């Protein structure tokens, strides 16, 4: 009985000790890097950061359905804009934390795999995986690239949607598709299991940026702001760069501005 009571008490105390933890919903392409950033943040003596990942569209839906999330990091502006439009975001808090590039990958062990985006039009290419463009930013960017390169017609009926960018990656790893379009950092996270064959011309898609914004309903606004400050610090920038992300703001510089 005493043991049980002691256990309950310690669980209770542990819960109290973690009361100052914030919940961050981040685009799934940030999975490893955000885990590292949160670890570093905690190691610096700051709060615990609970991370939840998904496609930016899924996370947006969750926040709209009042999920208890303090900070949202999307892989594209669109979802943050929608959150602002819905009046659910603290607009002044918005900051871009990193950027990325879009790449074409193929399964590592396939010999006559496509070698470029243009090769996707080849009849041998039976299936190409992209994120579902309405909810998955990587899919949204991928469709922009395919449209700019006039490949959507040729690929009609051959596209398979992933419900997030990591599912696209998984389809390629498992060899179920001939090619997939993911972020450079996703390709790197898969190591030898996939082969990167081409990087999309930044002129063919919107700049890939990760905007972070505090959710209006958050009860831990200050804690969220503190973490957001850390995300835009030099220390965090180093972690992002180490994981292959491009620096915040680089993507929207004039040289890489998208074609209208």
């Amino acid at each position: 009985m005493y043991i049980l009571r002691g256990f309950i008490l310690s669980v209770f105390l542990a819960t109290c000790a973690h009361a100052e933890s914030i919940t961050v919903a981040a685009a799934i392409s940030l999975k490893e890097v955000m885990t590292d950033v949160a670890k570093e943040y905690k190691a610096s003596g700051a709060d615990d950061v609970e991370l939840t990942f998904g496609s930016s569209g899924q996370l947006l839906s969750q926040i709209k359905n009042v999920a208890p999330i303090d900070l949202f990091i999307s892989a594209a502006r669109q979802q943050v804009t929608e959150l602002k439009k819905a009046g659910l975001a603290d607009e002044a808090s918005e900051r871009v934390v990193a950027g990325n590039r879009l790449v074409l990958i193929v399964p590592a062990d396939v010999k006559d795999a496509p070698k470029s985006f243009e090769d996707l039009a080849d009849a041998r290419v039976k299936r190409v995986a992209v994120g579902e463009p309405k909810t998955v930013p990587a899919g949204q960017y991928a469709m922009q690239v395919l449209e700019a390169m006039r490949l959507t017609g040729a690929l009609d009926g051959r596209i398979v949607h992933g419900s997030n960018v990591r599912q696209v990656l998984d389809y390629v790893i498992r060899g179920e598709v001939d090619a997939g379009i993911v972020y450079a950092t996703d390709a790197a996270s898969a190591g030898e299991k996939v082969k990167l064959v081409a990087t999309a011309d930044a002129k063919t898609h919107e700049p890939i940026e990760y905007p972070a914004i505090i959710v209006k309903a958050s009860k831990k606004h200050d804690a969220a702001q503190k973490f957001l400050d850390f995300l835009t610090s030099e220390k965090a920038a180093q972690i992002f760069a180490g994981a292959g992300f491009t620096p915040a703001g680089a993507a929207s510089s004039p040289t890489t501005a998208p074609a209208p």
Partner: protein
Amino acid sequence: MSDLWPPLWLSLRIATAATVLVALVAIPLAFVMARRAFTGKSILEALLTVPLVLPPTVVGYFIIVTLGARGWIGQWIHRLFDYSVMFRIEGAILAAAVVALPLLYMPAKAAFASVDRELQDIATLLGANRFQMFWHVSLPLARRGIASGLVLAFARALGEFGATVMVFGWQPRRLTLPISIYADYERGELGNAGLAVIALTAVSLGLILLYNRSLARAT
């Protein structure tokens, strides 16, 4: 509202094919299992019934690890024929069939078990071989139980989501009715799912009414 007909048509085709596949597998197996004892029977019995309680995602997982392009068996098929069930209608049919199988197998077995053994013995005495006995005696006598099982299996196949979405994936303009509802949910456009929800509810209710009536007739 999203267009109702293409996903409904796809779902009906998949469910019909899955029901045919289930019938071909479950009816002969039910016949044998109702009449014979052999070693390993209880294990086979459990295997045939377990999809009833397994989460369909587990069924989807097993299909992927066995028949996917990198699966135990699938890798050979993929190497030899450049084929995998993933994203194909055959994969969706297989997924729906596995999940629907117990719903035909169980009532069919019960129906075969309740067929008067003497009638079957007489058929054998009159010179019928095992197939003739099955076809002319057992099957007609078990038809009600089988028919109600077929209705239930079809209804389950029509509504299959978990295993199907893992194997068939999420393809543009190629969604089953249940997947189209989930796609609307994922996009935060659940309001668009209304027609699909009404269609699935109506068809399923109709099938259950049919099933209940077939049960009433069987007893």
